């Protein structure tokens, strides 16, 4: 399943990080990402962070969506 959910990096140590979303916490591997910092949001799939979520772009997308229609 390609489902991946955005989760926030709460702490990191070497190639692992603890992420959190909606009350769930889990430990994941961040070895597929070049750099990632505490406070970043990442897409979590099968125990790994597969990409960072660009928060600025997320807000821009929501702004565009809010302006659609009358």
């Amino acid at each position: 399943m390609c489902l991946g959910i955005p989760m926030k990096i709460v702490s990191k140590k070497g190639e692992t990080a603890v992420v959190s979303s909606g009350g769930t916490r889990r430990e994941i591997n961040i070895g597929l990402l070049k750099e990632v910092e505490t406070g970043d949001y990442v897409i979590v799939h099968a125990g790994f962070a597969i990409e960072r979520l660009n928060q600025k772009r997320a807000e821009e997308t929501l702004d565009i969506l809010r302006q659609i229609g009358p």
Partner: protein
Amino acid sequence: MKYVDEFRNLKLAKKLSQEINEIAAGDRRYNFMEVCGTHTNTFYRFELKSLLPENLRLISGPGCPVCVTDAPYIDNAAALAGLRDVIVTTFGDMVKVPGSHSSLYQERTKGGDIRVVYSSLDSLEIAVKNPSKNVIFLGVGFETTAPTIAMAILEASKRKIKNFSVYSAHKLIPPAMKSILESKDMALDGFVLPAHVSSVIGANAYRFLKKFGLPGVVAGFEPLDMLQGILMLVRQSKSGRAEIENQYNRVVTNAGNKKAQHILEKVFKPCDAAWRGLGDIPGSGLAIRNEFKDFDAGKRFKLKKTRTIVPKYCLCGEVIKGIKMPEDCKLFCRACTPDSPKGPCMVSSEGTCSIHYKYK
């Protein structure tokens, strides 16, 4: 949940729906294919069909990795599970998929050691904790998942874990899309492109669509993402444009995740693969490279291909290509249900038949 809930806003969904309906209004029909099973799931779970105009059809494509895993693979996995010193580890979806004569579920009832894992790294830990057993991980999934399995193999190699191996059935999305377009079974006007496969391979990976004169939009998996993606597709299609656009740019970049691609290429190489329903597609699978052959279950256990037997009346092949709907299948909801599936489309939670059954 942040960056999830905002993209499920019903008011904005209705505004998008209105916009799509206005732009698509007219005599023209629009047939778009969404490739990824997770998109199929969103479409039915959030009842997006009710928000789209009658003349716009969204067809489910073959992007369900469990659904397209062919029966010989399941047969081999079931046979491995029957061996006394083997632990088969797998993602949950695979357990009930029927092979020619058995399934992992059935092997488990006969005493086979089959364990569902969330991550391939969990499988590695099982290998560490059970040194006298051979632990095999069933590597099923597209470009989103394959890099994570590559990481597990690299970790196994680094830590010299000798009793761990992967049986790869990994597949690639772009060759499957090309195969569908070249078969000309469908008259398509464009593609809703996968979200997380694209986060790995990048939006540029779909530039081949230009050759077919078709637009493609990478769309996220939330309802507003899909609707905005469809809106962008309709706009392109109506004005005769054929470009790759990226609705999901909060995660997907044009180049993709280069590090993940590099790790994938380090461990795997493209190979020919058999897709249930689509047949053999050259260069569409991933095989473990020779330098990691110790972690290749196919080589270690000398697994061979057996003959495929398709259950009579099973339409999974056509459903996977989007030519037929589950409701066209004689077995749907009768002999074939989630409790007793006849084909993979009913087993996997991303399978079209399973989704139609759940949300009917």
